[in-house]
């Protein structure tokens, strides 16, 4: 291998390593989002249940309105 070929190879390796680290970050973010989605759906179900119970006489009315926010 000539020095030029080695330099070119090192550039390719550098590019691949960068992409690999970007893919790792994307996977970790997506996995976190999926976990957050499931938790959010469970929270919404509980909030609906509470509001339905409140209007059907199953639970006393709370003075504070239950709101959720999604970042």
């Amino acid at each position, binding site marked *: 291998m000539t020095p030029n070929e080695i330099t070119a190879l090192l550039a390719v*390796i550098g590019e691949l390593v960068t992409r690999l680290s970007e*893919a790792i970050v*994307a*996977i970790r973010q*997506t*996995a976190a989002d999926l976990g957050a*989605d499931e938790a959010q759906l469970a929270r*919404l179900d509980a909030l609906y249940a509470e509001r*339905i119970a409140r209007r059907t006489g199953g639970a006393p009315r709370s003075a504070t309105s239950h709101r959720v926010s999604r970042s």
Partner: protein
Amino acid sequence: MRQRRCYSTCSTSFIAGLVRVFLFWLIIGEALMIAGACVLHDHGRHQAVIGSTLLYESLAAIQDTEQTLFEAQQLSADQHRAFNARLVPVLQTGRDVNAVIVAWPTNQPAPVELLTLVTQIRALTEDLVTLLPEGAAKSLLAGKVLAAHGVILGILALFAGGGV
């Protein structure tokens, strides 16, 4: 001299071999990571979760507004009862929408039940304010219902985009 040249050639080809092996596994690793990211990425469902949250928020706003109006005696007990009878199925349908999203398998198109329920909830919310007499209370609630319809349209857009 010949032996030294052989050492030099052998050492260069050894390094080149190592680099090729390293490159090979790096490319394989990258391909696997990108494939994994594509499998995990489920844009439609995630949007539906956001849609479900906004739907809950808009329905909660309707309920809270009506409760405030009732407590301020801008709605009679009869109107409150009649409104309540229509609100509970709306909340139940909202909960059903949420349950359908929970059961939505990853990377699958949006379930047809979601479209049915969202269309149903739209009709139910339209009926909410029809029983109220014209006035400030009805206008206020109609505004909240309109906001809910905006959210519903957003969820329906999931289907226009192919569901995922």
